[in-house]
């Protein structure tokens, strides 16, 4: 690393910024660095949308192709756990916003507090998701050799003709999408844990809290993906 250079740097362009240890050598000033980091994060979120977009596309194509199986599969999901998780995530988005506010105001302990609460909420989500996965396992709704789909009745007791292979496809996509989402949640929890430790050590101040903001953007995106997953997987086939 060019540690020696990044601290000495060419003095001509940045002597008035030399007191800011967070400013990296190749930026002219802190504002440029912040703008660059923010644009970079937004672009990263675009790549995430394209990444999940592939799965959303597959979901829509197969839902159109195998509507009955997808409707029947959807009704086997636990709507209460899903709804609770949605609420948990929305609250966690609020705590992230409050964390960013606290960072902006320079309130270190409040910042750390909100970050910790966010991590706890994220973990709550993952635990509930774990219970949901266990339920799928018990009902033999995990795709694979043990898969068994016998529940062919909707909420009104009306029988739905369903090809179990197509229902298995629904659960394949269910696990692929929620699994990929959960992976992002785990990464987010890890990220906020690190940020909480750094915030506790006083790395951030009202002049520099870009990592908190950017991690917040990431968390919001992961929330928004769930906000789409929840109706698509749990809700839209339930109307009677």
């Amino acid at each position, binding site marked *: *690393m060019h540690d020696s250079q990044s601290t000495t740097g060419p003095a001509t362009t940045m002597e008035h910024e030399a007191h800011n240890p967070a400013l990296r050598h*190749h930026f002219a000033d802190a504002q440029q660095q912040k703008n660059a980091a923010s*644009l970079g994060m937004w672009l990263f979120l675009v790549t995430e949308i*394209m*990444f999940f*977009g*592939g799965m959303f596309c*597959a979901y829509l194509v197969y839902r159109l192709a195998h509507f009955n199986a997808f409707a029947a599969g959807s009704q086997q999901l636990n709507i209460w756990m899903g709804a609770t998780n949605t609420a948990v995530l929305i609250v966690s988005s609020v705590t992230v916003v409050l964390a960013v506010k606290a960072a902006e105001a320079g309130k270190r302990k409040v910042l750390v507090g909100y970050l910790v609460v966010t991590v706890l909420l994220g973990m709550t989500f993952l635990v509930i998701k774990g219970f949901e996965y266990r339920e799928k396992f018990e009902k033999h709704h995990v795709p694979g050799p043990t898969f068994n789909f016998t529940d062919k009745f909707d909420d009104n007791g009306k029988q739905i003709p369903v*090809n179990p292979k197509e229902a298995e496809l629904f659960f394949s996509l269910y696990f692929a999408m929620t699994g990929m989402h959960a992976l992002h949640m785990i990464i987010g929890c890890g990220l906020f844990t690190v940020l909480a430790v750094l915030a506790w050590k006083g790395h951030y101040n009202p002049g520099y809290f870009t990592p908190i903001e950017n991690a917040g953007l990431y968390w919001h995106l992961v929330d928004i993906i769930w906000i789409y997953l929840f109706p698509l997987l749990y809700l839209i086939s339930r109307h009677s």
Partner: protein
Amino acid sequence: MASTVIPANRAPAPTPKLNYLNNGHTLKSWLLTTDHKRIAVLYLISVTAFFFLGGFFAMLIRLELLTPQGDLMQADTYNKVFTMHGIIMVFFFLIPVVPAVLGNFLVPLMIGAKDLAFPRINLLSWYLYIIGGILISHVMLTGGVDTGWTFYTPFSTEYTNTKIVEAGLAVFIAGFSSIFTGLNFIVTIHRMRAPGLTWDRLPLFIWSNYATSLVMVLGTPVVAITIVLVAVERLFHLGIFDPRLGGDPLLFQHLFWFYSHPAVYIMILPSMGVVSELIACFARKRVFGYKFVALSSVAIAVFGFLVWAHHMFVAGISLYAAMIFSFLSFSVGVPSAVKVFNWTATLYKGSISYATPMLYAFGFIGLFTMGGLTGLMLATIGIDVHVTDTYFVVAHFHYVMVGGVLMGYLGGMHFWWPKITGRMYPEAWAKLSALLVFVGFNLTFFPQFILGYVGMPRRYWQYPPEFQALNVLSTAGASILAAGYLLPMIYFVWSLRYGKIAGANPWHAAGLEWKTTSPPPTFNFDETPVVTWEAYNYDEIPPWERRAPVAR
């Protein structure tokens, strides 16, 4: 911010002792560098290695096809050989080559920045590339893959016993390397431009890398998730692309080509940018229709996302869809033609000098035009149905990929070699190699157009004896081509020690990268430049510098 106005074409101070190359000599100072120029050199070494690895497989293919019967290898081996050729050349050479080597080196220099916006992510992207490369080499040494570089389902998910998951992981990781490069470029071009360097003053190389980066950022995640789905399907026997389980193999092709067609623009756009720079410098003129050439890069990036299903005309998509995709594929021809016509118009009444980079630029224009026009033939549904999966298609994309991308890359390497190393390459040898590449290339691939048109299918290790004469020509051409590629390897390395000292601006070229020393200092510019002129202001060059000097 303290900055000075540098007059447009004033030569800067002589080479200082300390530059990016000798600022630290340890291995660690290279492997942990965050200097975009050093990372470009790391990329240069690694993509060159993969180029010769991919070329080795190409030679095996050509040797096998020298005779009609399968004598060098069996069908299974041949399948693995052309698959490795494709995967290595596409994912580990063509996609990274120009952005990661020349782009990494030049984007900050051309816009007057000290570095890319995220130097550590830049280093990370090189490491991701290397991890992907090690993984694919591991796959190659422990059994290989036989699906072709396209990993079509259900063969890849259901039937083949080769290392799909590992190869997919390699491509997935290398894909993130390219996402990070694209993201870095976009942010850098938006946020790090020197004062006064407005969008309509940017060099066209920057515009084309910007368009490329858009495609990288938008397209690559889609192929990433597609590969994940293939791996998940293979590992857990899901049915996402398996028709017996309700899945649809066509969905795989749609998702795959949604990235992999735009990916060909990831490959060609940066080379187009290189050619714009070369033509302007060696014709001593501002590129004709600058704005159109700049925006045509963006137009290619946008249209490029709307044409993917022309790879699937015979796959069972509806005729209606096929007609729309055929029409849209034709429309990509418009911005591509804008570039070719504007380069030609730039040459008109230019003061042309025939240095090696310019020879490559001429080669690019001719070969890319051939590749592009045959692309229009393939976008025509009737012709496409006739020649699908024949050598006609192989010849077409090699004209674009090798005749286009590689010519642009080699032209750029010769042009900026003095900037990268501070030394000139030997001009006579370089001209010889440019000639060998051009002749060898045409001899290799032109016969394949004919072979394909008369019906020789691709991806077979045997063929009817009546195709032999043209195949022998093709193999002979490939040998000449190989010599043409090995030669620069030798004289570039030679020039590191014995080449003439280049000086800051050996071509008397415009562009900020020539206003700093060769090789540039670690932070590129001693003082942040302030730009007050348009790109390619060759009109302001004194008359005695009207022709680019050609080194001896």
